[in-house]
């Protein structure tokens, strides 16, 4: 099945839904690993929006990417509370552990401020990380 057909399928699943754009983009990102320019255009056509509008929405959210990145992703909180609890000191070790194999993404607050530094891999949030904990999390990715 071509990407175009897969997107058409996702569009069909959301037919009739109020405010379908974000759920649709999320499903496309999950299914195809990215929201490409072609996907934006196809969604625009399907929802009778302009290509620019869809791009404006898709480019606003970091979770939608223009190209697929097959690498695993570890999201590290860099917000104030985690900074106060020492996340900055862990970053060099994290980068060394990640290399080119793992993608590190900065995020701002995972909602566990009292138990930072925090990071997220897949759907699990890991708290109270020290350098060793973070490195092993990255290595496990």
């Amino acid at each position, binding site marked *: 099945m071509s990407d175009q057909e897969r997107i058409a399928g996702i569009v069909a699943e959301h037919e009739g839904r109020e405010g379908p754009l974000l759920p649709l983009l999320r499903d496309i990102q999950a299914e195809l690993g990215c929201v490409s*320019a072609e996907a*934006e*255009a196809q969604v*625009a056509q399907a929802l*009778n*929006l*302009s*290509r*620019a*509008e869809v*791009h*404006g929405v898709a*480019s*606003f959210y970091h979770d939608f990417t*223009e190209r697929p990145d097959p690498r695993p992703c570890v999201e590290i909180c860099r917000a104030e509370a985690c900074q106060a609890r020492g996340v900055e000191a862990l970053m060099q070790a994290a980068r060394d552990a990640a290399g080119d194999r793992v993608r590190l993404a900065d995020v701002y607050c995972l909602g566990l401020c009292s138990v930072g530094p925090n990071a997220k891999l897949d759907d699990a949030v890991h708290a109270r990380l020290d350098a060793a904990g973070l490195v092993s999390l990255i290595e496990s990715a």
Partner: protein
Amino acid sequence: MTYERQKDFGTPEVLSETQVTLSIDGREVTVPAGTSVMRAAAECGGSIPKLCATDNVKAFGSCRLCLVEIEGRKGTPASCTTPAEQGMIVATQTPRLEKLRRGVMELYISDHPLDCLTCSANNDCELQDQAAAVGLRDVRFGYDGADHLGAPTDTSNPYFDFDPSKCIVCSRCVRACDEVQGTLALTIDGRGFASMVSAGQTTDDFLSSECVSCGACVQACPTATLQEKSVKEIGKPERSVVTTCAYCGVGCTFRAEMRGEQLVRMVPWKDGKANRGHSCVKGRFAWGYANHADRITSPMVRESIHEPWREVSWVEALEFTAGRLRTIREESGPRALGGITSSRCTNEETFLVQKLVRAGFGSNNVDTCARVCHSPTGYGLKTTFGTSAGTQDFDSVMHSDVVLVIGANPTDAHPVFASRMKRRLRQGAKLIVIDPRRIDLVRSPHIAAAHHLALRPGTNVAVLTAMAHVIVTVGLVDETFVAERCEADAFEEWSRFVAEERHSPEFLQDVTGVPAQTLREAARLFATGGNGAIYYGLGVTEHSQGSSTVMAIANLAMATGNIGRPGVGVNPLRGQNNVQGACDMGSFPHELSGYRHISDGDVRSLFEQDWKVTLDDEPGLRIPNMLDAALDGSFRAIYIQGEDILQSDPDTRHVAAGLAAMDCVIVHDLFLNETANYAHVFLPGSTFLEKDGTFTNAERRMQLVRKVMEPANGMQDWEVTQALANALGLGWDYTHPSQVMDEIARLTPTFAGVSFDRLEAEGSLQWPVNEAFPDGAPVMHEAGFVRGKGLFVVTDYVPTDEKTGPRFPLLLTTGRILSQYNVGAQTRRTANVVWHEEDVLEVHPTDAENRGLKSGDWVRLASRKGETTLRAKVTDRVAPGVVYTTFHHPETQANVVTTDYSDWATNCPEYKVTAVQVAPSNGPSDWQENYAELSGRSRRIAPAEPAE
């Protein structure tokens, strides 16, 4: 007038019955409720600093510069988003506000290049103005942080550049594209510091994006980020003159911004009542033809069309012309002479051309290009309503609940009005489109037609009668309106007629191709959906039943009570800037100005006394009859002002033969057009930038055209016509077009109250302007129809004689595209060719597959009349069995294939239906080859003879 920007009130005007009074910096001001504090301040002469606000888009509240303090309220609210309230006490300048504003401005400037002295917006930049207004002296943050100064400039659009390094991301451009133009081609890419204005997607530049180059974003930009290339090249304008656009019938008014004799840019005038400060790519940018190298500025003559042209003096040209005209008149009588007025020229120029023909040539052989476009509108609306014009102003559409568009493509042909219509549709009005082609209005961002009736070309009458059938048989007629306002007998006859089973949607669906259920739903929606307005174009008129269709539209409007108030009506979208005016001015062979028949002795004697001549009391020849008469030798001389009949009129080979048979063809134009290939005299014309006069737009609005530069040819067009009249001994002595308008007003009751002085004072007037309507009439037939009672007319569907068959199985229909205009004489000589450099033939995928065609292939398009070649574009915008092309390019000459079938009442040609065959091709048709050769030969200009 010296140059200054038009005043910007910050937020749009609010219309409200309730008024509120507030105090701003100690000044009392009264404004309609709902007006922003910012606008209220501007109304009383104040000026609150602002960057993200401008008065053609809604308030946004993002720049935080327009903060004010309001007594009794906490904080410093943004004045753009705060509505004025009764008794409010507002302070706009306090130490606290000054500090806040300076801080905001410091942040903006910390990421802005400090190259004001070399910036093309220097001294015409709102950022610069506001920095001065808030007293910016230094930037505490320095300039070492991250910035956008290295962002590359997008120069892809031919008319303006996008330089994001100067962008302050105020979103004015994005909002203008959304709210004013309705294309939504711009967005903000990314978030936070990375936010950037973006045309389309990451992969786009302005040219490849959905942008239609209307210029609204450029106008909205407060900096040099989006700016006309012409300003960069020429510099800041030093004066401006308000004038009226010479493209389509919307009649946008612009400020022609000048530097010396050079036009720097055209900026839509916010006080223009037709365009309300908006524009399209043609009027805004495509004026470069005025100084194009092809422009001919010297008169030329030749003995025969086989000789090269000879440049001569005006005196020699006029003597040569007058001599020929006199000889022909002596040999063959006055009826061997005639003229064609131009819908491109002013009312005054048009009036003089018809006066020259009637009073000077001595015949009524005068016609106008409306013959080939809206003559059925004149006939149909005069018959049913009593006057030959649309019933509404453009503002009316903002009160419509159901909009019915038939045979018109407003987003391409009347883009500025289309933007207004789309704004109303986005507010929730319903749309019905009746068109063989899936035009953009059927489905484009945020716009979707409730019903698209994709009928077979040539079946308009059948579809409209079937709609009437539904309305009558289901009992949806507005009985009260019909009883009070319309002739009872005619209505009875009509309603019996449409109720016959042979007019039911079910009976007609095989003929029209419109499913009965769709048609029924559309008819119900139109009859019951509230204010119903009908907008139509040449897809209605240019048929063998054009006049019948116009009357069927009028019937539908009357039956549903949709006449005589804002939001309803019958609205022909006029193709050319002054086609309404040209018709009003007596350009038709049977009518004097104000649509009065030439056979009416009282009317004639009025003109005879004023002009001191005797007028022929018989209607003269129409354009097609002139060409026929030329072939039999009885019509020998023609004066054609500003029209290229060879390219624009149907059946090109017949037109060519008719012109070739004449002894004196006088072409008065900007360029050696296609018709000039058959001319003996070429009189150079002046552009709309070079003349004074008036144009009348599709809403009957008369507006001034003002001269902004001297005519390159030495004379305005009315002066050329006067010189020709005087060479024939008529002794005209007009010194200004206002005197011609005075004569028109004197002789025409409809225009009795019109004068240049009034137009100067009031901006525009919508005729009639007379005792009954001293200030004109935005909506017609309010109290009663001009003819008394509205007349229902029975419209029997008669299929055209142009039929498909085994040799010609497809139906060709023609139209326009946004970037090109009519025969393209102007737009082809501008950068608009970037969007459309050749005519292409749209073919449905099924028809393409049957013929082995793909997009880009050369194809031969043949009809019973002729053939041409062009490239194919495979698209499902057209239905199977239908092909479509434009007629903008002389290399294609789409009208080689159109026929001489025409409207039964007015001879308006049936451009919209031609039976054709399409086949692969590998070279130009014989006609194209022969014509290209003749055209090259005929355009030769002899080198000037060396002085002895």
